[in-house]
């Protein structure tokens, strides 16, 4: 029998964390409870964050939006600000798990679990997300890419809790793309994924670009040389095919049960070609 603490106020939370150094924290439970069932973790007690109001919600602060870490995936899918400002992230959440999992799982949980296959993560990386971490004594803010250290590892000190995510609105970007590859159409762990944030001029030239890949390295990967090589280019098969080869050389996937490293490497490059769908001239060609 384990104690399960459900604090309602943050003061309670700090007290419990101080008292129970070996406890495990969860919000939705869709990751932690599965790990407990399989025996991977066996904490003496549990802290559930779902009752702390200040950990939820989407707050439009003008140039930035703050998302409480315990906002569930379905909260975010239904939020008009998230849908309008961050369609790539919305797409990532849309293909995460299943409806009941999205009702329980949280964006904070997806971040702290830090799986290289996390569905929200590639989009959060291209959005240059920052996380806010609280402890009893202080609050700090740092880029997400510095917060996630490796598979299952985040820069949380003892008695610290991920409080929320800061996203800057990106009005000049006009392509918000996310694609996930799984071995079935839904409810599948990603075997390769790509997020892309692009600003295209009217003629289809790339003005700005940020790309990120999931499931092809220990954490989400992005490459400034790839991003830079797109700038000034038209989205065309030639450009994207040659970039694809660069990406293949840059990613570091592993073999596992779901896919081989070779497949992941190949697909991480090929996924770039999907960006052609956003090219006005390509679309014109297809329609004719």
């Amino acid at each position, binding site marked *: 029998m384990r104690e399960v603490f459900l604090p309602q106020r943050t003061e309670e939370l700090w007290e419990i964390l101080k008292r129970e150094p070996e406890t495990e924290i969860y919000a939705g439970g869709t990751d932690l409870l599965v790990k407990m069932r399989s025996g991977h973790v066996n904490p003496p007690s549990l802290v559930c964050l779902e009752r702390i109001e200040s950990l939820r919600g989407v707050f439009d602060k003008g140039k930035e939006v703050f998302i409480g870490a315990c906002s569930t995936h379905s909260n975010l899918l239904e939020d008009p600000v998230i849908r309008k400002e961050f369609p790539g992230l919305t797409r990532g959440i849309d293909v995460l798990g299943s409806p009941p999992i999205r009702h329980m799982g949280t964006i904070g949980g997806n971040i702290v679990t830090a799986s290289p296959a996390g569905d929200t993560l590639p989009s959060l990386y291209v959005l240059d997300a920052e996380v806010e971490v609280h402890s009893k004594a202080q609050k700090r803010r740092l880029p997400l890419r510095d917060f996630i250290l490796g598979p299952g590892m985040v820069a949380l000190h003892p008695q610290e809790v991920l409080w929320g995510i800061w996203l800057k609105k990106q009005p000049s970007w006009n392509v918000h793309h996310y694609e996930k590859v799984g071995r079935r159409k839904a409810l599948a762990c990603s075997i390769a994924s790509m997020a892309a944030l692009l600003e295209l001029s009217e003629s289809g030239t790339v003005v700005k670009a940020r790309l990120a890949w999931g499931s092809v390295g220990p954490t989400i990967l992005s490459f400034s040389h790839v991003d830079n090589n797109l700038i000034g280019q038209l989205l065309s098969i030639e450009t994207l095919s040659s970039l694809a080869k660069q990406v293949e050389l840059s990613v570091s996937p592993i073999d596992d049960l779901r*896919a081989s490293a070779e497949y992941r490497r190949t697909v991480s490059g090929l996924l770039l070609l999907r960006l052609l769908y956003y090219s006005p001239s390509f679309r014109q060609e297809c329609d004719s």
Partner: protein
Amino acid sequence: MKESERHTPITDLLLAQRTHNRILSIGTSAPRVDAYDKVTGRVEYASDYYGNNVVWAGVKRAGVPHARLKTIDSSRAEKHPGFICVLTHENVSGTNRQGVVKKDQPVLVDDKVRYCGDAIALVLAENKTALKESLDLITLDFISLPPVLDVEKAMESGSPLVHDNNSDGNILLKGELRIGLGSAAEEECDFLVEACFETQRQEHAYLETEAGWAYMDEDGRLVIVCSTQTPFRDRMEVAESLGLDTGRVRIIAPYTGGAFGGKDGVTLQSFLGLAALNTKGRPVKMCWDREESFLAGTKRHPARMYYRLGAKKDGSLHCLDVRLYLDTGPYDHLGGVVLAQALEHAGGPYRIPNVVLRGWCVYTNNPIGGAFRGFGVTQVTAAIEQIMDMLADRMDMDPLELRLKNALKRGDKNCVGKTLVSSTGMIDCLEILSKHSVWTERETWKRSGVPFRQRGVGLAAVMQGLGYGPVVPDYANAKVELTSEGNIRVYCGVVDMGQGNDTANLQIVSHILGQNPDRIELVQPDTDRTLPSGSASASRCTYTFGNALIGAATTLMDRILKRAADFMMAARNEELVLVPGGVRCLLTGHEIPLSKIAKLLSHDERVATHHFRAPVATEVITTDQNLRLHGLPHTIFSYAAHLACVEVDELTGKVEIKRYLAVSDCGKVLNPQIFEQQIHGGIAQGIGYALSEDLEVLEGRMLNSNLSTYLLPTAEDVPEIYSVAVEIYEPTGPFGLKGVGEISTNGPLPAVSNAVADACGIRVHQSPLTPERVLGAILKNRGRGEHVEDHV
């Protein structure tokens, strides 16, 4: 709409569900009799009993593929407060051996471990948590033995043996059939194609895992309630293996939450029995979690199939050479029967005058191969239907034309030389498919894809034999009773595991006895109350039991009318008719209620039974008695033609099935809705087999034994399915029907593979067609130096 308005009065629902105010007819979609209880959560499955003072039982399994057992150390477990006791083979008084054909599987290991799921010890505990903790505290010590992992290597001399006392090394069963000139006829062929196909291990993954409970009743008899397809055979196996008198064992089979062959035979029954014998009167419960169900249960046999198919330039098939290897794991478990059925269907639904078929069913230390919907036909259909398309391509012939030209007709001999004497609708299925809009509009549909997503269509022609073959009797005993209150009680002999045969039974009895469903009660299979009627398998449930039921219901009808005729002083039975609730004399209009007639009949007269045995093949197509015993040949076959329309994503290799058409000849349809349920469900399992399901085993150990890594199709993975029934009357079937349970599972893998070949010009010879395999084949086909733009 207000919350309250979303509710429908319960009377309306009963009306819809049982149409209680009118007699059910044959050929209409009477709603399923079990549906209401299932949709309200009222059905008690075998796992739903928690009882009072229940003991929880669980199995300690080997976890190694091949080893001698040295010691079982339960000393730490014994200290656990919830631990009750541990039982080993020493506590088993009977043969300690189970099996359908060959009894080679121990209840609890007494000699050596032959697969990771082998049961070593049975632990009894006070509750679920104590059980799990006690099991974890038991340690086993083994001497590892070199495992047998590959079928062809297993047959080499010097290979370790799975069963030291097996007469033929690691071969459980082998078979060879030759028709005509065999492979000598290859010289006469104008075209010859050759290919090897490998199909994977598939997991049944029924939603209800193996579960049940047991107790000793006041008479000291062992009562087991369990999720099973075979209550009567289970009773025999439990009695033999545990050393009990069959009459002292009772097996009750409630509605099963899916089975598909995985509960054909003993799963946990003997454990429950052994436990109940050792709990000093307390009831015992066992429920396998998903991982244990993966570990211990049977699988579809993985197959390696070498095919050579030859034809003349006029398109007629001329010769076929097949070598087929099935990995049957460590125990018989119907493996030989699967091999025999695979050999029989290896040539598909075609006339091929020169055939040589060779097959081996081989013991290994991999998971147990057993019965799984399709039963060997699924594997060989994948091969023959793909090589047919390869041949059509080589001959530059339309794949539908090639099939039409060679399709079996009634009176033909099939590829094992069996004359088709029963209804044979293969050509009818293909013709109807050829006129369906999904086929006729295929070229337009293919051209309307989007960039990087190539479209293709693929066919498969399928046949599936019904029943057990010429030696093992396919029989059923139906019992129907006029109760003393004047209602009808039907003793259902074959388990309803979701296929809807309970409702078919209700329709048959309602139709014959002219009674409304609300006066008809169904008794679920129970070795004390219902009569032996064979397994819920082999596409024979409604065919065989339905025929027996027609006999029993007709007998009862005659008795009722005869007695009523005497009582009402009618001259002949024919002047009377059964109407809802009674008997009416058509000449006088006089009517008496059934409750009154019941009092005019003795108890024995009120119970009518009828034994039916399905027809068997008269032709002897092999002198190999062992092969005959294992089911060669069948005599009643169902047929189908399938069409898959797919989209292949050239950037990722993902295959999406956009539409699917199945045209099926399963005789006359008794209940169109239930018929469609079977077609849809079989296709869904076939789609999993084609695209995403693969139980991977390395060095005898399963790599993916849960539902997040073993991928069943979700609602987004199965497309809209168009199903057409070709209702050719089968005279031997109840109201003209044949089996529909298995046939549709066989179509998707070859249809999808053929469609992928049509879309991208590549063929993947290993299933499932994962994105990785498909993309690999696409890129290899292009040569990596080619540019993607050439293929947009």
